[in-house]
Every structure is written in C-alpha cells, then in structure tokens.
C-alpha cells in the first residue's frame, strides 16, 4: 500500500507489561463498496478507533476545467453534466448562468421556470441517491432499493423531457434546449402525488429506526462556526443550524416568486450538526422541492423557452462568479472570458470538495464504522471533488 507522500506518523507506545503496540495504517482504498465514487482514505487506527483519516483524492480527475478552454461556450455544456453526474442539471445551470451574465443574455420567463422545474426534480433525484446510499452504508439495503425505484420514475420523466437519463444536457445558454412535451406536466403532477406519501413511508422505514438513529446521532457533530470556517455548503451547512440557502439569500432565476422553507438541523436526536441532522435536512429538502414543483406547475407562463443566442458566441472580456444551490450545496462557477469563442478559464467550486476537507478534523477518535457514516452524511461524490 503506497502512502504516496502522506507522512502518517505511526505511533508506538509501550505499556507497563513491556508490550509494544503500534497503530494500524489502513487504506480504505479507491475500490470500496461504500459507493460515493473513487475516494481513498488513509486511516491510522488504534484497533477500531481512528486517530487520523486523511483523504486522498484525484482518482476521478478528468481535467474538465481545462477542457472548457478547448471546446467553446456551447460545446462545454455536455461536459458540465459530468462535473457532478448525480445532480447534472445544476451544473448545466451554473455554466449557462455564467455565460449569460458574461454575454448579457436574458432568459425568457418560461425558460426560467423550465430551469427551476428541472433543478428541483434533479434535487430530488440527487437526494434520493444520497439518502439511499447512506442507508445502504449503514447496513439497510432495502431503503436503497426503494429510493432507486423512485428514481426510475424521475429517470423516465427526464427521458421524456430531454432524451437522457443521467447526463441531461437540458439547459442551453439562453434558456433550455427543449420545451416541456405535451402531457409532461400531468405526469409530473402524478409523480408528485405519488412521491410525497412515499417520503413518509421512507421515514417510517428507516429515518427514525432506533438502530439507524443510534448510528447517526451524536456522531461527528459540526458546530456552526466550524461549518462556516471550513466552507461547508448546502445540507451540510444547514445541518449545523446555519440558515443559509443561495436560493433565498442570493436568489437567482425565478426563486423570488416561489414560496418554500429552508430546513435546518435542530439536533432533534442528538447534537446539532451531527450526521442525523444532515440526513434529516435532506429528507425535508425533498419535501420542499415537491412544494416548489407544485407551484411551478401552476405558475409556469407561456412563451419562448430560449433567447436568441448566436451560434458563435463571443462574450466580451471579463469575469463573473455565479453561485447556485446545487443538491450538494453552494456551487460556484468562476468564468473568465477574453472575448473569443473559447473561455479563458473556468473554475468550479463544489460543495463536496469543502466537505471532504473537514473529514480529517471531525473523524478523530471515531470508529471506522463511523467514518462510513460521516462520509455518507456529507453526501460526498467523487466526480465533484476531482472534476
């Protein structure tokens, strides 16, 4: 096992009987059944209790930011799907927002509503996977399959909307690529009618199960100050009690016209900011997304869905930083244009990257089983970390 530049100081200690004990260095390697992608942790443990858990990232680095400089403004949109393939609509949205702000394009109202519908559906999509994987990592396999079953409905909805089930490429610079097909809004309403009672059933099956709660409550609590210091975002930040949501605090698109709450963690089963809070914030966010979707279905106006954008887009030179509330938190896009048809530089800030940086700090003196719970509760996805 290569430590590849990690200076893990193995501690030897001698107890009274003259027995020399040494910490164990484990590699929770890139191939690991606890999904979340290819992540590696180098763990220094004394038996079951960890002294240090150092993340080793880079196994899924695909130079996406560099590719932006080669393929141009329109051509980069399919690549943004791959930045976080679990919640691909948000990445599309981020790049489109950045390009529109640079080029001064305004998106028509119906286009904005289509974007919000796609975003919120994708939020449910992503949270279902996050919550399901968390249940699976804790050991309950049935809730995972139930979550995947619900995602199948969403996959079908997305398939009708944009033709793909995972890498949507739905949004374009200036709007969205396709208008809502005939009958799709009805299908969406029926999905919401189906889905909201199922969140309750999911809660009853696993969320408040005593064993599940015992595994998550009081494990790795992150205080609000720590969360802000470490740049956490999204449900991780809100689980620690900080009421910050980009949709409310720096609204974009049509969110000012929509009514929704922002759930925060209140320590109902343990300390504020423990794994259970982050989990329950995600469950509640799914409900809020359903609420937003119902409003969108009613309020969506008629009209064009995309503005006129030249095929050979050349935004004026400048830079812009846009942020939007992705499923994993505050996703930031810093794009620099130099006036040509190709971006000069694109930098993506993702919630998972900050989340993985807090793992060494909060996993001190936790057990290895708890490390799994922590990684799952932070909803890390490797593609977002490595891009």
């Amino acid at each position, binding site marked *: 096992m290569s430590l590849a530049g990690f200076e893990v100081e193995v501690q030897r200690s001698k107890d009274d009987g003259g027995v020399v004990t040494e910490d164990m260095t484990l590699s929770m390697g890139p191939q*690991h059944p606890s999904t979340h992608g290819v992540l590696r942790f180098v763990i220094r443990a004394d038996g079951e209790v960890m002294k240090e858990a150092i993340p080793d990232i880079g196994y899924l680095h695909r130079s996406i930011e560099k590719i932006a400089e080669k393929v141009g403004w329109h051509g980069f949109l399919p690549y943004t799907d791959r930045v976080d393939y679990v919640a691909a609509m948000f990445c599309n949205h981020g790049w489109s927002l950045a390009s529109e702000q640079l080029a001064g394009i305004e998106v028509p109202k119906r286009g904005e509503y289509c974007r919000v519908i796609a975003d919120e559906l994708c939020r449910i999509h992503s949270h279902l996977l996050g919550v399901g994987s968390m249940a699976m990592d804790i050991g309950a*396999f*049935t809730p995972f399959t139930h979550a995947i079953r619900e995602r199948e409905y969403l996959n079908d909805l997305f398939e009708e909307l944009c033709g793909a089930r995972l890498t949507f490429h739905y949004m374009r610079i200036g709007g969205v690529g396709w208008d809502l097909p*005939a009958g*799709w809004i009805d299908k969406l309403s029926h999905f919401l009618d189906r889905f909201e009672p199922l969140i309750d059933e999911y809660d009853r099956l696993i969320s408040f*199960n005593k*064993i599940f709660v015992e595994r998550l409550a009081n494990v790795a609590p992150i205080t609000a100050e720590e969360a802000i210091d470490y740049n956490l975002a999204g449900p991780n930040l809100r689980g620690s009690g900080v009421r910050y949501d980009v949709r409310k605090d720096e609204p974009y698109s049509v969110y000012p016209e929509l009514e929704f709450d922002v759930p925060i963690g209140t320590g109902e089963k343990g300390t504020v900011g423990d794994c259970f809070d982050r989990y329950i914030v995600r469950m509640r966010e799914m409900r809020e997304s359903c609420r937003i979707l119902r409003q969108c279905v009613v309020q969506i106006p008629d009209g064009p869905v995309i503005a006129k954008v030249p095929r050979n887009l050349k935004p004026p030179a400048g830079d812009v930083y846009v942020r939007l509330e992705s499923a994993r938190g505050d996703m930031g896009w810093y794009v620099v244009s130099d006036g040509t048809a190709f971006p000069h530089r694109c930098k993506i800030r993702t919630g998972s990257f900050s989340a993985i940086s807090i793992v060494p700090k909060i996993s001190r003196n936790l057990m290895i089983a708890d490390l*799994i719970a922590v990684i799952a509760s932070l909803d890390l996805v490797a593609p977002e970390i490595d891009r």
Partner: protein
Amino acid sequence: MAELVGSLFAEPTWVHYLGAALAFGTIIVFGLVLPIAGITTWVERRIMGRMQSRIGPNRVGPAGFLQWLADGIKNMLKEDIVPSAADGPLFRFAPYVVMVGFVGTFAALPFTSALIVADLNVGILYVTSVTALVVVGILMAGWASNNKWSLLGGIRSAAQIVSYEIPAGLSIFPIVMMTGSLGMQDIIKLQGWAPWSWNLFANPFAFVAFFVFFVSALAEGNRTPFDLPEAESELVAGFATEYSGMRNLLFFMAEWGNLYVIGAIVTTLFLGGWQIPFTFENKVVQHVLEFATFFLKAYGVGVLVPIWLRWTLPRIRVDQMMSMCWKYLVPIAFVNLIGTAAWMIWSPLWLQVVTRMVLVVSAAAGTMMFAHRVVYHLEYAKLTRAHLLFNPLATTRSPG
C-alpha cells in the same frame, strides 16, 4: 445408531462403527445440511427481492430454484486463490473449522421422536458448545488472510460471538430448570403440541428469555443487525474477503445453515419441538408429520424471521453491540433466570395456568396488531399507486 450397526453385523468391530459413522455423516451433510443451506439462499434471495420491490433470481430452473446449485457448481469450478503472503495451512484450514462447528450441531438435533442421531443427556450443552467452535475458525480466517480488513472483521466477530454466548446460555437456563434435564428429547417431551403448553408461554420470564435467546443467536450467527464481521459496506466481506471459490462458499453455507440450527434450537427449547396432537399407528406417518412440524417451526422462526430482519434493519456498530450485550441482554437474562427459579418455587398451579392463557392471548393480540399495521401500510401504498400514470412499456410515449 449403535443398535442399528449391531443389528446389521454379527460382531461389529470399531471398523464397522467407524464406517457407519462416516456413512451417516455423509448422508446428513450431503443430504440434509447442504441442501438446507443452499435452498435457504434461494429463499432468502427471493424474499429479499420481493421486499425490495423486485423479483429475485428467476431464470435458473423453475422460479430460479436451481440458482443455488448453479452457484455451488460455479464456485467449485473457480480458481482457488490463496494469497502468497497468507499463512497457507491456517488459511486453508479455517473454513473447515467453521463447517465443523456448524455441522456438528446436527448430531444432536431432535427431528422427530426417534430421529435424532445422538440423544445425548447433555444435548443442549453440546449444541451451544459446538457452535462456539466457529470463533476459532473465523479468527483463523481473519488472521491468516494477511489483510488488515479481514483481521478487523475476524476480531470483531470473535468478540461478538464470545460475548453473546453469555446471554444465549443464560436464556437456556430457565428452560433447563423447568425441564430438569439437558437432553433435547426430554425438553420436548415436557411440552405439548398446543401453543399454551409450549415453554414459550410457561411464564413471563421464559417469554422474555425467548427474545433474548433469539437476539443472541442472531448475533452469534453474524446476521444483521449484527453482521459487522462481514459488513459489506465497510469491509467487503470481513474475514472472508480473501477467500474465493469453494472456501468462500463454505463460510456462507455455514452462515445460512446456522440459521436453521438456530431455528431448531429455538423450536426445541421454546416452541414444543416435534409434538403433534395425534398419535398414529403407522409409525412412518407419525414420524413424517413430526418431522414436518419440527421443520416448519424451525424454518419459520429460524430462517424466515432472520431474513425478514436482515432486509429491514441497519447494522449496529461494534461498541453499541457490546453495550447492548452487556448492559441490556445480560442483566435481562439474569433477571429471567432468577425469576424463573422464583416462579418455579412459589407460584401456585392456578397462577401458572392463568399466566399461560394470558401470555397466549397477548401474543395473539400482538400478532393481530402487527397484521393490522401491515394492512395499514398496504392501504397507504394505494395512495401512491392510484395516481400511477406511468407505463414504461407504453409504445406511444410522446407525439412523434
């Protein structure tokens, strides 16, 4: 068995006895144990599939029934990989120790009134001791794999099994006290065929002892919620990570077959064993019915309920498991022990009869409440189906 050998041969020597023992062993292992273990995997995968809104294996054989045979043959044909840095002899020997620990219990299980390989007068003690042999096997597997994750799994398992022996043993004591003997057939003979004559409802302490024993036996069998030694999400397969092919299958057969042994022990101790209401003149019919009763009870409680639990519950962490054993199960088991003793000394006959009836009625009421809850969930699920417009196989999905 000794009489059988004596009746077949005029002057049986040790060779005859050894041959008979081997023959019997082969019949039991290949005819009873392996099929039970294999078929349990099929049952588990089908039930697990339905609980997860999907079908289980259904291609190999009718309703997928031959899947376990296919898996067994595939595993036998697989390459036998022994890691070069692993401790060779220990690595190879470990699965067999685990299998011995598991198969050895079959020698003392009372299938019918006459069908028991060895009616030891220390039957139940023998069974619990032999199942403890698996600890040695698991530790050997974990250590010899030369893999830190396997080692962790092996040590967790050793701690778990050794700790949970205590509440399991303590829960057996009330039954032994009530029976006055350790022999398996004696325990069954003192119960009757009717639910109210089972040891389960004899007194409230035995009732609680049933649940304590069930939980401890689950923990000893490495089943969820206690499956940390093979926690798939953390340790791939725990102590069995480095094993491939038939050796791996031996470990898992031991685990699934152990479920049946748990069921058999629970049936013997608490659920009245093979007792049936009628006696028949035709001994074959009688024994077949007794075997069926025993098998159904053992399978229902020992296999189906653990499968159900496994696919519902998450797993408990190591320290929580230890605290549950020492802080919850052991004190409760002690209370049961002393309570049963006090009950046996001081309770008058009328109280015993009334208690049996009360316990049977409350168990039935509990089951009714549970069924009511299941029906509630089905009704609730209709909420979600009535609006189902999706037909993924509709050939006209959108205009064009």
